[in-house]
């Protein structure tokens, strides 16, 4: 309905392994599949920008989506479901499996998931303040990383060092050893004067890593950290709280509060802010699975998902 479109928020995105499709999850628990080849083709019409498939995946909002070689993993309402991409493309919406970590009390939401290809495990962070690790081969939860005093917003993985990183509402970025499950470091970003923004808060809502570097932000300003020395090297003067950031070539892309996609340089300079349709953005994805369809997509508090063929301007939008 029109009202539901008005109140829709897109929380998560994931590209298919072939790179020709985009899956997007919204606050109604729905996942929509968009055909990029149709939307990017020269004879695309308005209909090409609508989903080829929409289905309800969970009861609660789909906060996180992740693709493996052949599966789409979605998280919503405290549970994780797996779908076969091939089946989804054929419009078959039966999940392969649905699992749930062991929770102590009530069932929390799952905010973030990341793959650890080293040992084929899935790292899950959510509302119970813990990071759960699911062994995808055996299908069992093998580790619980405890340490955060408030819910976990985002997780990331440093494959080479076998480390898991998690950022939480408690303002801490914790670095865990993925083998032992021990917390090896705890960085309380809000305690660093260069990043702290007490007027916003201390939570960490965005976290991403690239070998020795880490980007994190949220209440505090988004900052670039050198992980070996555990010190911030650049702080980015972006107003609003950032919700997702990515390293791209020698640039940093970030989205968050505010209707733009920010381009930043590693030194801390904000090079450009490209206007987007949603007033506030939650998710940013770059399609690395296909060169033909190598686009950047951004979604947020709108039923529109902006598509960039050229990072510097919005080409068109997909719509739920």
């Amino acid at each position, binding site marked *: 309905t029109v009202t539901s479109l008005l109140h829709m928020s897109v929380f998560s995105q994931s590209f298919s392994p072939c790179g020709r499709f985009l899956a997007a999850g919204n606050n109604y628990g729905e996942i929509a599949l968009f055909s990029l080849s149709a939307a990017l083709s*020269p004879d695309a019409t308005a209909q090409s920008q609508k989903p080829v498939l929409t289905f309800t995946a969970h009861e609660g909002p789909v906060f996180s989506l992740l693709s493996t070689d052949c599966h789409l993993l979605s998280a919503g309402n405290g549970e994780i479901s797996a779908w076969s991409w091939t089946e989804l493309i054929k419009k078959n919406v039966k999940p392969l499996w649905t699992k749930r970590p062991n929770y102590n009390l009530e069932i929390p939401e799952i905010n973030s998931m990341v793959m650890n290809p080293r040992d084929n495990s899935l790292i899950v962070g959510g509302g119970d303040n813990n990071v759960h690790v699911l062994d995808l081969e055996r299908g069992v939860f093998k580790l619980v990383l405890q340490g955060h005093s408030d819910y976990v917003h985002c997780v990331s993985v440093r494959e080479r060092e076998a480390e898991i990183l998690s950022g939480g509402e408690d303002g801490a970025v914790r670095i865990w050893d993925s083998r032992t499950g021990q917390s090896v470091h705890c960085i309380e970003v809000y305690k660093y004067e260069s990043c702290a923004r007490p007027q916003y808060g201390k939570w960490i809502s965005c976290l991403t890593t690239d070998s020795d570097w880490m980007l994190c932000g949220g209440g505090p300003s988004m900052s670039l950290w050198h992980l070996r020395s555990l010190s911030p090297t650049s702080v980015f003067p972006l107003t609003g709280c950032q919700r997702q950031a990515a390293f791209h070539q020698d640039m940093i892309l970030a989205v968050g509060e505010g209707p733009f996609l920010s381009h930043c340089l590693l030194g801390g300079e904000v090079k450009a802010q490209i206007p987007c349709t949603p007033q506030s953005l939650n998710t940013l994805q770059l399609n690395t699975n296909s060169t033909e369809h190598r686009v950047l997509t951004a979604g947020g508090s709108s039923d529109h998902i902006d598509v960039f*063929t050229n990072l*510097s301007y919005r080409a068109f939008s997909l719509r739920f």
Partner: protein
Amino acid sequence: MSPSVFNFVDAKDKFTASAIHALAAKNGKQLVNAFNQIPGNETEKKTTLDQALRGVLGDQIVEQKASCDEYLSLIYLSIDAVTEGICSATTPFLLLGDVLDCLPLDQCDKIFSFVEENVSTWKSNSFYTAGKNYLLRMCNDLLRRLSKSQNTVFCGRIQLFLARLFPLSEKSGLNLQSQFNLDNITVFNKNEQESTLGQKHTEEKEEGMEVEEGEMGEDDAPAPCSIPIDYNLYRKFWTLQDYFRNPVQCYDKFSWMTFLKYSDETLAVFKSYKLDDMQASKRKLEELRATGGEHVYFAKFLTSEKLMDLQLSDSNFRRHILLQYLILFQYLKGQVKFKSSNSVLNDDQTTWIEETTKLVYQLLREIPPDGDKFATMVEHILNTEDNWNSWKNEGCPSFVKERTVDDKPKRPTRKRQAPEDFLGKGPDRKLFMGNDELTRLWNLNQDNMEACKSDSREFMPSLDEFFAEAIEQADPANMVEDEYKVVRNPNYGWRALRLLSRRSPHFFQPTNQKFKSLADYLDSMVSKLAKELPKDIPSEEIKTGEEDDDDNGDNLLKDSNDSPSIQSKMVTNQQMDDMAAKLGAQWKTLASHLEMKAAELREIETDSEDVDMQAKLLLVAWQDREGTQATVDNLVTALNAAGFSQIADSLSEA
């Protein structure tokens, strides 16, 4: 003997031979000599020589052995011949035309250089009128033969030559009706089938422009790989070129709507996609040069969709497009005489154009390098265009200033007066100060000090003038309330003091009376003055010019001092003591006749308990108030009026 008949064939042959010799000798004298020797009249000989020269040239061309230099020497010869007067002025041009018509383009290039170099010759008096049409025709023929995209430089040279040859007002060189080159169509892939997306990988690359880089670049091998293309923008962007090609379309409502929509989208992309990296565009320029070898100039846009991203990130490309917008807007808004009557913009369109012009200039300023300078330059050029446009509208008036013809020699008028005149020694005996006002003032009175002393500069008022109002207000019969009295006005009071100090002796008389305020002091002064300056004796007022009011004061002093009458004598202290003793408690009765105020009476009562004392105080107060008027006479009058005739008598006797 009859005059020799002119033999055409004979003459022509002689001229031909002579010309060939002259060419060989590189000297035109031979030709002149030949001309003079042959019998016949000038005209006949000239036309014959023309023919001869053309024949020589024709032979040279047919032989195909001659080089350009030889043709040029012949033409030089013909120029010299014209100068010598033996050949028609049109001949060099005819020769040029012949040569250019018969030669291939690469040789025409050399011939044309000759034409360019000698433009001053063509413009000189002897050649211009005869040759200009020939030259114009010749150039136009050449232009028709040349391809605008292949021989751009040559075409440009021809155009420049024409521009130099003709004066500005030569209409044949103008685009008088502001017509457009409707043939300049920009081709792009409107059709999906034609898109390069589906093509095989074996297709050859386009002139080195396919170097993939930038955000969507790929680390793969440089084989042509497809990248995502924004077809939407691509189509809309290149469609705009059609509006630039034929601006008259904008006046049509539906075309305008499309133009508006597409422009908004395109400009939004420009706005969003800001160019800041000068390094990137420099790099691309280097690569262009490297692959092409030399700097290639494109007369038409390259419209492959794969180039769109690269083009968007190129500063020069953007400048082209934005400048196209500005030129278009100038045309749409401008007054051109040859526009049809329905080529008018409505209000909405005008508003949109204004807003968009601002946006375009802003975008221009943001394009590095030197965006600001470029934008200012563009604005200046477009403003100048306006001038040209109005010049065309007026029918291209000539720019040559005509020298004005003087009818008769005028006597030189003197701009300035002779010095004697304005130093007062001239016939008027007036001193001219160079300015009317100054002259007037100077001639009134030269000496400033003397002028200041003149009577007309006497601004100090007389006492009665100034105090008239105050005196009137002081009269209790007028019942003017205290607060409205003019003496309460501090400004008035200050002036009153100054005036009193200049004109009134009362000012300098010592007095025991303490005044609580200036207003009170003035009250007493005013009453004193009132008594001194009687208004009902007008004869005293009318005085001659010499007598001023200072005398008045002096007279008064004399009066009071010189009067022998006892009654006018001042009341003494002793007298007052006696009277006080006699009055006793009855002093209050006397008080009313002495015009004492109730406040004063109360003050007396509080000052002393003793009635005698109070009576004394009354008399003292009266004396203070009256000043010089505190005379025995006045007191006697008051006493009598109060019913104290006895006391009055005793006072009189004393």
